[in-house]
């Protein structure tokens, strides 16, 4: 007897997301639906505005990956106007990227994702001495663990015990404590819990790191079309020193806590089927990011792999990107269409009456997605008619396949330490590990960009390239590159000195989009199928799987033009040369 489980809201993400799964009599998932439940229409709002303002507005697409859309918006306009920002500006932007990735990834793992893995109630039963000793098992070679001294762990336990004794757990209330798929021992839970609290402190440092050159965080404000405005901070050695110190603190923390806890998770969760089930979708797509010098990028691959095959790397052909809206709340877009030729008209049809298993296991009346019709504000992007997964996992496996030496080293060392085969990357556990490995790659190699900036500042102080916007001309341009949640692109057209059209194709759109017209599912939906739930009333397996993508739903929902105008022809002329 098939049953449906509605999960709305999916919490601990950015945005508003509903996920529904259908399970058979053995509680095995036979079908899954992902539905975004908010539309804001920012691209519509951009039309007719000053191109210099676009970045400030696109930045407000998202406050979690704050800065991603700011940089994308500013860069797309620079590309359109043919501006080459000075190297100082490009490298400064990379330094802000590092701060963003450090911040975003540690907060994602500890504050948003950890409560799917870590049972904080079990941590109260742990032996702090034992836990303290155990922590040494998981750190990378040459590092000691952090925030896991016996005394510290005892303090953490005491603090949380008091919280629990109050009988009202506040934000931890009604969590999935004691769930069958929670695999850490009390000691391991205590180690992770201590890092949960420690990360609250460390993420403030990452935010400060961005604010040094960005003015503030979230939503920094020092990028301008042509370059960066923080020239005084760049010319002040004390400011550079502040950045360097905070970078080192974060890099140290990534190795001593984040890396270690993922190794620990790999050891504890290696046999939990819902965590190590191989993804049904085996295609991964990425684009180069983080410029470290005049012609070098930390992650330099632009392309994809197919069917889980790490031995073959394919270069990207941007003309093969399409979107469609067979199951999305837009009209007249049932065929895969290139973003250039796409039309968009909202057509909300809502949900239908149905039934769901509730939190007590009863079948209750509820709203459900209209699975034969339209059911999400997110469209379905495809590459060469195939769904693709994007994100840190895509970044790591595609760079690995493309022969990026730094990525290969970081990944191989992790696999060696955990004893996992490379295949294990294509799982929920692997996706969560890849995000950490991406952060570790930055921690281990990011200072190259800092050193090159300092070197360049010795002979060149330029921070902004001059430009003019000719109101009689038409301009087209785009940004494309990986941000914390994967491949992002912004496309713009400028006419009469104003924004004529704007479109963002966002990472979470690739992953969270609904089924397409040919019945092919995006990553969220496809990879849930085949998973078995221990208890449909507490679908932690589903929540954990969805969290592993680090959803950013405000980003994913986008539209170009309510009236359904065409975007017109772009002539792609990438700012950074051919890829």
């Amino acid at each position, binding site marked *: 007897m098939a049953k449906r489980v*509605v999960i*709305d*809201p999916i*919490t*601990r993400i*950015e*945005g*508003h997301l509903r996920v529904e799964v259908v399970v058979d009599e053995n509680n095995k998932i036979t079908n899954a639906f992902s539905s975004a*439940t*908010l*539309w804001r229409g*920012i691209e*519509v*709002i951009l039309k007719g*505005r*000053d191109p210099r*303002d676009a970045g*400030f507005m696109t930045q*407000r*697409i998202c*406050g*979690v990956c704050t800065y991603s859309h700011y940089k994308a918006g500013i860069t797309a306009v620079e590309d359109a106007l043919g501006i080459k920002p000075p190297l100082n500006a490009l490298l400064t932007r990379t330094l802000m990227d590092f701060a963003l990735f450090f911040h975003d990834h540690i*907060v994602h793992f500890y*504050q*948003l994702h950890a409560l799917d893995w870590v049972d904080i109630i079990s941590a109260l039963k742990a032996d702090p001495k034992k836990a303290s000793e155990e922590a040494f098992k998981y750190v990378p070679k040459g590092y000691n663990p952090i925030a896991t001294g016996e005394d510290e762990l005892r303090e953490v336990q005491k*603090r949380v015990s*008091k*919280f629990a*004794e*109050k009988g*009202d757990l506040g*934000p*931890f209330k*009604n*969590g999935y404590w004691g769930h069958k798929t929670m695999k850490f021992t009390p000691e391991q839970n205590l180690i992770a819990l201590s890092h949960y609290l420690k990360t*609250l*402190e460390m*993420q*403030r440092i990452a935010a*400060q790191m*961005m*604010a040094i050159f*960005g*003015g*503030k*965080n*979230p939503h920094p*404000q*020092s990028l301008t079309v042509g370059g*960066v*405005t923080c020239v005084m901070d760049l010319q002040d050695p004390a400011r550079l020193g502040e950045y360097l110190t905070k970078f080192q603190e974060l890099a140290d923390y990534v190795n001593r806590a984040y890396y270690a806890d993922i190794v620990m998770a790999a050891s504890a969760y290696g046999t939990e089927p819902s965590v190590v089930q191989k993804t049904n979708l085996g295609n991964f797509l990425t684009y180069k990011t983080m410029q470290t010098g005049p012609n070098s990028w930390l992650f330099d691959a632009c392309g994809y792999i197919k069917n889980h095959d790490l031995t073959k790397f394919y270069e990207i052909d941007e003309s093969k990107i399409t979107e469609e809206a067979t199951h999305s709340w837009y009209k007249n877009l049932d065929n895969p269409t290139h973003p250039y030729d796409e039309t968009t008209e909202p057509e*909300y049809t809502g*949900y239908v009456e149905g039934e769901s298993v509730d939190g007590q296991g009863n079948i209750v009346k509820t*709203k459900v997605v209209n699975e034969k019709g339209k059911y999400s504000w997110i469209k379905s992007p495809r590459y060469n008619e195939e769904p693709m997964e994007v994100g840190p996992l895509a970044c790591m496996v595609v760079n690995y396949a493309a022969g990026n030496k730094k990525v290969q080293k970081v990944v191989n060392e992790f696999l060696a330490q955990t004893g996992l085969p490379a295949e294990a990357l294509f799982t929920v556990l692997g996706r969560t590990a890849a995000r950490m490995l991406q952060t570790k790659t930055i921690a281990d190699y990011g200072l190259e960009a800092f050193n090159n900036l300092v070197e360049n500042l010795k002979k060149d102080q330029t*921070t*902004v390239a*001059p430009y003019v916007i000719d109101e009689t001309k038409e301009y087209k341009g785009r940004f494309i590159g990986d941000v914390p949640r994967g491949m992002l692109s912004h496309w713009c057209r400028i006419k009469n000195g104003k924004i004529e059209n704007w479109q963002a194709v966002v990472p979470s759109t690739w992953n969270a989009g609904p089924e397409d017209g040919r019945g092919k599912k995006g990553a969220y939906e496809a990879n849930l199928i085949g998973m078995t739930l221990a208890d449909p*009333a*507490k679908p932690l397996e589903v929540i954990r799987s969805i969290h592993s993508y680090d959803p950013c739903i405000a980003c994913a929902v986008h539209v170009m033009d*309510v009236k359904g105008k065409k975007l017109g022809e772009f002539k792609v002329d990438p700012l950074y040369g051919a890829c």
Partner: protein
Amino acid sequence: MNEATLQKVKERIEALKKLPGMGEKSVSKMLEDSGFTRRDFLKWSAAMAAMLSLPTSFTPLIAEAAEVSDRLPVIWLNMAECTGCSESLIRSDAPTIDNLIFNYINLQYHDTIMAAAGWQAEENLKEGMEKFKGRYILCVEGGIPTNMDGQYLTMGPHAETGLELLTRAANDAAAVISVGTCSSFGGIQAAAPNPTGAKGVYQVINKPVINVPGCPPSAKNIVGTILYVILFGALPAVDNFNRPKFAYGLRIHDLCERRGHFDAGEFVEQFGDAGAENGFCLYKVGCKGPYTFNNCSRERFNQHTSWPVQAGHGCIGCSEPDFWDSMAPYEEPLANKKYDSPLADATADSYGVTILTVAGVAIAAHAALSAIKNPKE
């Protein structure tokens, strides 16, 4: 601040103490247990008093208020938003005491950080609203879509619209705080042509609302406002746009570190020029500091690390109503266009700054800008 007020606060705290608490432990005890001394705690209380513009006689009361703050449950709702305000809140200040205070406020519901999801999350919301009926503080992040009967945003298994949920939650709230410019005034999604009919909270519910605008506001302003409510059992003194005066009483311009350059007529003419390297005034490259009421120039962001003007970019006016439209273009001086924001008064129609010589600019601008008054209660 007279004796009567002080007395009132004392009574208020006594009343709070009588409420059923979450447990026996006081905040200060808990802080001691986690390595903070009583002295740290009082230091923090004094800093908070200063920030709330209260006399030092209030310091011990703030400490006391913080100790009973766990009696005040908070429900936090996310509407049409980007989560930047929640992100700002978790940047909450060193000492980490802010974080503890926040944790201690008994957070019943918060989408972004709560452990529970789906049905379990719904249950928490329901329980929080019933158990603390009439006593919880409702914080709202994000604008409220109202077109198409609010269906641009739905939440929960029954696909309730954001508008319906907000109305329900506001009914039984002791106080409603709009955190950020979106919930205060509609924000980015309400910028022209406002396709979803997004509005600020105060425009869709019948209840006094405190607006804590900013894109996002600093954690200090969020925490300060909540504390004020706890302390007085009332809403803080506000301006015309319901912004607490302790945080939004002065213009950015009033305490700007580049103010001397403005007065001297020294301006950055374009980003990256010699003026930029010397920290000249950013008015001519679009700074909206003279029209914006907030404490950024005093408090800065991220533990005083920096703020936009320090990073060489002008203020974009993000704590003002409709700033996305009224302050645009963000890198052009406002004086280049007619100023038609709600802030405009009889004198604020034309500044005529642009055609003046550089030497005359400051004086003329001064005269014009001084004419903009902070909206009074």
